[in-house]
């Protein structure tokens, strides 16, 4: 649950009822969405609740999805079904804090890998991808690897 609209990667606004807090106060549910970067790391089914100051994650729902959660005096570990660590949380005073900014170390390795074709695209001053194939086909240059050049995404520059 969270109270901040800007955290969502995907959000579907739909009033679905209320959440009851510990002191019997109620919070209105405004929507339902996904938090994460869209591809490699996502938390699904996150509720957007009116006026909620702190973001909460439900352990029971994590367990329902097959994760295992282990609490220790200093931190809390979340394992996936295969037994490898997905996230580590730190304990600050009496609260376990989950900081995705620092915990997402395994995402880094996934994204820094770059394609050879895109490297050559940047080396040759961003020329057209099909031009590489033409050069290779007619064997007009030396030192260009025989790859299949294809524009599979947009160039960042």
């Amino acid at each position, binding site marked *: 649950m969270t109270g901040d609209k800007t955290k969502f990667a995907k959000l579907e606004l739909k009033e679905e009822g209320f959440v009851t807090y510990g002191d019997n106060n109620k919070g209105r549910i405004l929507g339902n969405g996904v938090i994460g*970067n869209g591809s490699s790391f996502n938390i699904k089914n996150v509720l957007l609740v009116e006026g909620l100051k702190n973001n*909460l994650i439900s*352990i029971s729902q994590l367990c329902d999805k097959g994760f295992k959660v282990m609490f220790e005096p200093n931190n809390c570990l979340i394992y996936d079904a295969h037994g490898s660590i997905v996230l580590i949380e730190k304990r600050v005073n009496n609260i376990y804090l989950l900081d995705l900014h620092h915990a997402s170390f395994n995402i880094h390795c996934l994204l820094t890998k770059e394609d050879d074709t895109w490297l050559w695209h940047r080396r040759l001053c961003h020329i057209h991808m099909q031009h590489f194939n033409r050069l290779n086909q007619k064997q*007009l240059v030396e030192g260009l690897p025989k790859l299949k050049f294809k524009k599979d995404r947009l160039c960042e520059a």
Partner: protein
Amino acid sequence: MDLFGPSRTMNLSGNLNALVIVDDFSRYTWTLFLAAKNDTFHAFKRLAKLLENEKSFKIVFIRSDHGGEFQNEKFEHFCEKHGIKHNFSAPSTPQQNGVVERKNRSLEELARTMLNENSLPKYFWADAVNIACYVLNRVLIRPILKKTPYELFKGRKPVLSHLKVFGCKCFILNNCKESLGKFDAKADEGVFLGYATQSHAYRVYNKRLMTVEESMHVVFNEANPKLQDHVPKIADGEETTLKKKSTAELESIVGN
């Protein structure tokens, strides 16, 4: 033959204008950087002499627009002396000078892309244009002839294996340029700017000394800066700091 500029920023050697000269048959291109437009004649004279020596044939004709840098006494005199026919496009009709005008556009677009990709300062524009010209000479394919300008002009296939990403971070070995202490850093950080014309080396901008130098002992880091920046940016967005209370509390909260 055409001149573009003045650009708003000087490059590091104080040049504002670029003179672009294209060979009409092979489309091999030369870019010369000038501080002022009236240097055009000297630059052209030097290049003409070089080319005539290298290829052992004479320049037959040149085409340019009516710019004051091309249509003047010096040029007229030079053309008369060497028997060059100077062909002008019709007044205010750049279409008739299309080959070089289009080349200008290609060079500017490539340079702009490369400068913005690495968010480099604008005073590297000349290096960006220069490297764009260097690469285009080697990779363009001349229609019908089906060859690159480089092959048509020099008679051999271009080699691309030494190419690097413009503006990438690199480390320049400090080999005996100045005496180093035992535990001083052996390399300086730099920015890759291009390929040296007169020697087999890379042109790099040394960030510590703030100078452009030529060196062969350079290690490159060609990773895409945009992709690297990307990761923390995503993480910033999801800096949710999902707060977590102990389980008992949470169960009572969610248990509605």
